[in-house]
């Protein structure tokens, strides 16, 4: 990853380091000037070790979350980077015929065969290019290459590999592209291969269970060629990270019947495999004058792939940082709570200090010195623990991604560590400073007597200013939201108006209960009303993930106020229900009365729990609902059971006839056999201003596919009422097409995507009910073939990856491109009772020479959903980390309560509370707070999730989404959090129960 929310990590690192240096210089200077204050500030740290541990734990949570997010981002970047290097080695640019896809596009799962038929060109052109740049200081290698997917059979081991990459080059030119090393041996060369000999890379050897000396049959161009494995090798740069056969160029030309032709020229820039990429722009610029007249073009393949790696890393980091925001906010609340409670503990001491002449700034400094020490240690431990969390998350991810053949490569960059540490430290420092300032505002008399501070005068000027400010900000945000049609601003604006009412209502003389409860309820209702409540007067807002974060914070504020200012009702309700159990009544009474009386600390802790639980419930419920939505075989498979692809150099022209002729397949097993061709063309919406043609796949669907598929649409153009009508229209009119939803603009931007295509449509939104049919121009960059299509449908979001692109009828593509639009993808609906897996295997065997790879769509879906579910677990676990904040808060509160209530514990013991009862009372107190927070967060989260899912079900693209709460996951997470809360409270509770009454009563 190289940036966070678009800001380069290098910039962040410099800014944070400078800020860190400034902060530390100021604090050090203050400490040196006031050594006594430093001494006073630091003396508490070693005194109460247990407390110090809890404080450090509380302070480090924000840093853990940030570091963990960075760790996953770095790992994802490194994973892709590693795949890139395996595939490309030292290759930086790939030169091909202009307009053709290079065949080396990176899709995040590895290098894929481009959907375009790759054109070969005269080998003599290599000489021209070599002459132009071969001696340049910019490059250290240039070589002619053939790279072609072929099917291979190992006749010795009797294993097949339907898709291996045949990589061939001139051994004399490969010097700058790294060494080919024999597994367990030394360096070898393509020049060492005798006639009929080939090297297998280790991946291919694994797949084929092959070893040196094995006989192979390579199927290419409709013929099978016998070859013998000379050795199993490791080579980075064979244009694939998977199975590959390595041949000399002339041997490959003969094998493929491409005498005198090559497919690519590969270029290695000066420098190493990674560092060379930075010269790509210069190399391409230098090549352009030579390539253009030759109708060739250079693709900065490695730079593009590395950019994708960074982009994906950035997406992961942003994703986890955003979803960690709630935990970070909760962490900030915890830091504030910790310092306010530390201050409460030292109140008489501070009052005395003030009375004898200590200034407020001295108190601030004392807290600051203490806080900075905690902060420095906590951020350091937090950053390291964040690494451990990231490591754990990535380990789980690695399992999930194995389905897609992705090997996760752990990584954490020093830069990320520095940014996580400094950011965590600075964030904590700010909160510590604000807390220190807040605690310095003590009333000297009440502090000395350890009495509560006098209540802020309700009618004071500050109250009025706060209220008016709230209203003004609110009105302004509402206005911005309405005019820009941005939901977050609008919702936040109204919320600020509601928040501003609190001080104003208090100033008007309303009792606190009413002044907080009414706006509190209003805030909750405002955010949790069904989304379409005000549709009749409000514009169609756009919204993004920020709405989720603000909604969480606002509903939790509203709900916490409401509960805390009506605690007596809650207490009565609890006593009415549980107070009937006589043994429990006295314990329960004190257990609930204490937290409900200490509104600030209880409110803060409840809010911490609620906030994290709220987000967990929303995320878990939504991801569960979406996983179930996508786990729809019909929506994924479109009514087909098997999808099979063949290699381009040996496609199956007539699949029906091929099945009929096959001796191993039975035509009766196949109910429907449909085919699809795909080409990488360029598209542009007609009438779009300032937009250029952009590369996008165009698919040709044969009549069988059009007549039998069951894919549905998020949007259908005016005049079309059902998916069948749309598909029929495509069959009837070759000028019509449909498109996947990715290029379509959305009002709701909740996605995190890397590698989004440049091709975009405009003028309508996916959330609309319909749209006017829109024209797009299609151009083939290779042949300049040009035609127009009319888009009449947009597939639902549940569309499978293999339907990505603009889909029209096969007849349209055949008419335009004749042989180039050969179907290479086949879909099979099987007769009832036919074994899908066995048939897929049989198809692969029957069409091995065509390099057929057949997959049961249900299995493919299962793998995809399985990965999604694992990812959901990781996300839930990551967000669940925030619950540690609540647990730590309870630990701090309990520890403080034991000290604070020592004498009261003595009284309780003297009037008959047994040890167990005192202990139970503390545990119940923590339970009450934890369960109140968990309950509140769950209810609020469930309501919001219900609204989101209801809203989704009203949109065609996600109309089948259903509200289903993953109770099991949530229960497990909550039980762990609750158990941890009890555990954290157990020690202080035990300590409280051990207090001897006489001793406690003597305590003043």
């Amino acid at each position: 990853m190289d940036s966070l929310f678009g800001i380069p990590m290098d910039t962040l690192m410099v800014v944070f380091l400078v800020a860190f240096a400034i902060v530390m210089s100021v604090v050090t200077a203050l400490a040196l000037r006031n050594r006594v204050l430093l001494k006073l500030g630091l003396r508490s740290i070693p005194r109460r070790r247990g407390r110090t541990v809890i404080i450090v734990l509380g302070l480090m949570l924000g840093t853990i979350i940030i570091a963990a997010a960075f760790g996953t981002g770095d790992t994802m970047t490194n994973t892709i980077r590693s795949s890139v290097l395996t595939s490309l080695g030292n290759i930086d640019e790939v030169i091909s015929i202009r307009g053709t896809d290079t065949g080396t596009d990176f899709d995040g799962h590895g290098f894929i065969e481009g959907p375009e038929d790759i054109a070969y060109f005269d080998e003599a052109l290599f000489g021209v290019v070599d002459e132009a740049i071969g001696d340049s200081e910019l490059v250290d290698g240039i070589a002619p290459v053939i790279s072609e997917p072929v099917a291979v059979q190992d006749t010795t081991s009797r294993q097949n590999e339907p898709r291996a990459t045949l990589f061939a080059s001139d051994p004399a030119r490969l010097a700058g592209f790294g060494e080919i090393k024999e597994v367990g041996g030394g360096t070898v060369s393509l020049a060492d291969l005798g006639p009929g000999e080939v090297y297998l890379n280790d991946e291919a050897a694994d797949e084929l269970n092959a070893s040196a000396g094995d006989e192979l049959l390579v199927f290419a161009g409709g013929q099978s060629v016998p070859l013998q494995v000379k050795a199993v090798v490791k080579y980075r740069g064979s244009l694939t990270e998977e199975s590959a056969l390595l041949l000399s160029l002339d041997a490959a030309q003969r094998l493929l019947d491409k005498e005198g032709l090559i497919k690519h020229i590969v270029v290695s820039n000066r420098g190493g495999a990674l560092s060379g990429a930075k010269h790509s722009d210069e190399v391409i610029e230098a090549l352009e004058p030579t390539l253009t007249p030759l109708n060739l073009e250079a693709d900065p393949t490695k730079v593009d792939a590395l950019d994708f790696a960074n982009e994906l890393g950035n997406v992961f980091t942003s994703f986890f940082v955003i979803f960690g925001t709630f935990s970070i906010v909760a962490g900030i609340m915890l830091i504030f709570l910790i310092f306010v409670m530390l201050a409460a503990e030292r109140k008489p001491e501070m009052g005395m200090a003030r009375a004898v002449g200590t200034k407020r700034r001295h108190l601030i400094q004392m807290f600051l010195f203490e806080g900075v020490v905690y902060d420095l240690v906590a951020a350091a431990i937090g950053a390291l623990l964040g690494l451990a969390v990231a490591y754990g998350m990535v380990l789980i991810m690695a399992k999930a991604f194995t389905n897609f053949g992705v090997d996760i490569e752990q990584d954490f960059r020093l830069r990320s560590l520095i940014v996580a540490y400094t950011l965590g430290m600075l964030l904590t420092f700010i909160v510590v400073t604000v807390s220190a300032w807040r605690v310095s505002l003590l009333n000297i008399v009440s502090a000395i007597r350890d009495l509560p501070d006098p209540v802020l005068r309700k009618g004071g000027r500050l109250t009025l200013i706060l209220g008016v400010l709230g209203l003004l900000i609110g009105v302004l945000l509402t206005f911005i939201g309405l005019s820009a049609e941005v939901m977050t601003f609008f919702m936040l604006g109204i919320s600020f108006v509601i928040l501003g009412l609190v001080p104003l209502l208090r100033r008007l003389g309303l009792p606190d209960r009413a002044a907080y409860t009414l706006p509190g309820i209003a805030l909750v209702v405002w955010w949790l009303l069904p989304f379409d409540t005000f549709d009749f007067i409000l514009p169609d807002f756009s919204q993004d993930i920020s709405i989720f974060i603000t909604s969480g914070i606002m509903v939790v504020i509203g709900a916490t106020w409401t509960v805390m200012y009506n605690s007596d009702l809650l207490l009565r309700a609890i006593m009415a229900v549980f107070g009937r159990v006589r043994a429990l009544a006295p314990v329960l009474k004190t257990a609930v009365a204490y937290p409900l009386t200490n509104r600030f600390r209880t409110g803060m802790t409840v809010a911490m729990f609620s906030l994290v639980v709220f987000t967990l419930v929303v995320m878990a419920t939504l991801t569960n609902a979406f996983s179930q939505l996508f786990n729809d075989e019909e929506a994924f498979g479109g009514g087909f059971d098997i999808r099979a692809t063949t290699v381009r150099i040996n496609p199956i022209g007539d699949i029906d006839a091929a099945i009929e002729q096959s001796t191993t397949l039975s035509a009766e097993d196949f109910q429907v056999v449909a085919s699809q061709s795909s080409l990488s063309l360029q598209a542009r919406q007609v009438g779009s201003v300032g937009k250029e043609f952009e590369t996008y796949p165009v698919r040709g669907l044969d009549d069988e596919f059009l007549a039998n598929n069951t894919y549905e649409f998020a949007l259908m153009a005016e005049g079309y009422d059902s998916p069948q009508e749309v598909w029929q229209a495509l069959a009837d009119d070759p000028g019509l097409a449909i498109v996947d939803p990715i290029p379509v603009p959305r009002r709701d931007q909740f996605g995190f995507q890397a590698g989004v295509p440049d091709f975009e449509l405009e003028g309508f939104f996916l959330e609309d009910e319909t749209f006017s049919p829109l024209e797009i121009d299609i151009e083939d960059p290779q042949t300049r073939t040009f035609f127009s299509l009319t888009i009449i449908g947009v597939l639902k979001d549940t569309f499978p990856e293999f339907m990505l692109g603009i889909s029209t009828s096969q007849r349209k593509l055949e008419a335009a491109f004749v042989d180039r639009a050969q179907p290479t993808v086949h879909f099979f609906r099987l007769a009832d009772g036919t074994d899908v897996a066995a048939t897929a295997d049989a198809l692969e065997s029957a069409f091995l020479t065509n390099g057929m790879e057949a997959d049961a769509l249900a299995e493919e879906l299962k793998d995809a959903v399985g990965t999604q579910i694992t990812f959901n677990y990781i996300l839930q676990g990551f967000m669940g980390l925030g619950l540690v904040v609540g647990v730590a808060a309870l630990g701090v509160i309990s520890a403080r309560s034991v000290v604070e209530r020592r004498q009261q514990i003595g009284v309780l013991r003297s009037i008959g509370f047994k040890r167990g009862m005192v202990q139970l009372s503390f545990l119940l107190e923590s339970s009450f707070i934890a369960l109140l927070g968990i309950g509140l967060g769950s209810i609020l989260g469930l309501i919001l999730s219900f609204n989101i899912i209801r809203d989704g079900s009203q949109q065609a693209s996600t109309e089948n989404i259903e509200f289903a709460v993953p109770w099991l996951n949530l229960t497990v997470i909550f039980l762990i959090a609750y158990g941890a809360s009890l555990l954290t409270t157990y020690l202080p509770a035990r300590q409280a129960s051990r207090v001897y009454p006489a001793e406690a009563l003597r305590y003043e």
Partner: protein
Amino acid sequence: MTVEQERMDDATPESADAPPIIQALDVVKTYDTGKVKVEALRGVSITIHQGEMVAIMGPSGCGKTTLLNCLSGLDVIDSGRVSVDGVDLSTMSDNDKTEYRAQRMGFVFQFYNLLPVLSAVENVELPLLVSGVSAREARQRALQALDQVHLRDWAEHTPAELSGGERQRVTIARALVNSPAIVWGDEPTGDLDSTNAGEIMDLLCDLNERQRQTFVLVTHALEVAERTGRIIRMQDGQIISDNRIINREAGIWGPAEGAEPE
């Protein structure tokens, strides 16, 4: 006729004849702070009869609060023997002692020691709830107890909303609500002005008179002690005198049964 006059005529002889409820024999209690050892009680022996109202007096640090704590089972003794109602406290487990306190004892402390988070009535009903009385009955009896101390109308107020005297009356209501056999008071008027202190003593004396409960009060105030029927003086962890009132009007006190004359 004042309460004191009635006590002078009736209570004293009766109390003295009543069976002993608290007996301490050669009680020793030492506090070890690690650096120094403080001998708080040095072989204290005492017998208190049922229905007696006893004041324990002495200068600060003489061991009077420690004696009260040891007699009531709030603290453990190092040696000697304390029995309450004929039961040796050392044979009781911590839970047994706690249960015993809940059912048979009431406490009034100098600083009230009410739970600030509970209302007056909730504070008073707490010992009843601990003893397993139903919530409804506990509330009823708590209100009656508050009525007895003339605070019925302040039942729903929290301690912070009450004056010092009112808080102490709530404490007394809490101490008496479960009709304990013994009420312990540690400087019950120590934090009050003289008017409030007088009112509280009126209340305690009246309750002692009417309900015949045993009151053991630790105090350093002579005017408080003189309103009880027996004054035990302590110094340096030992009892130095033990006198019972003979004629309150005349201010005549004589050595208590078994005590050395002053």
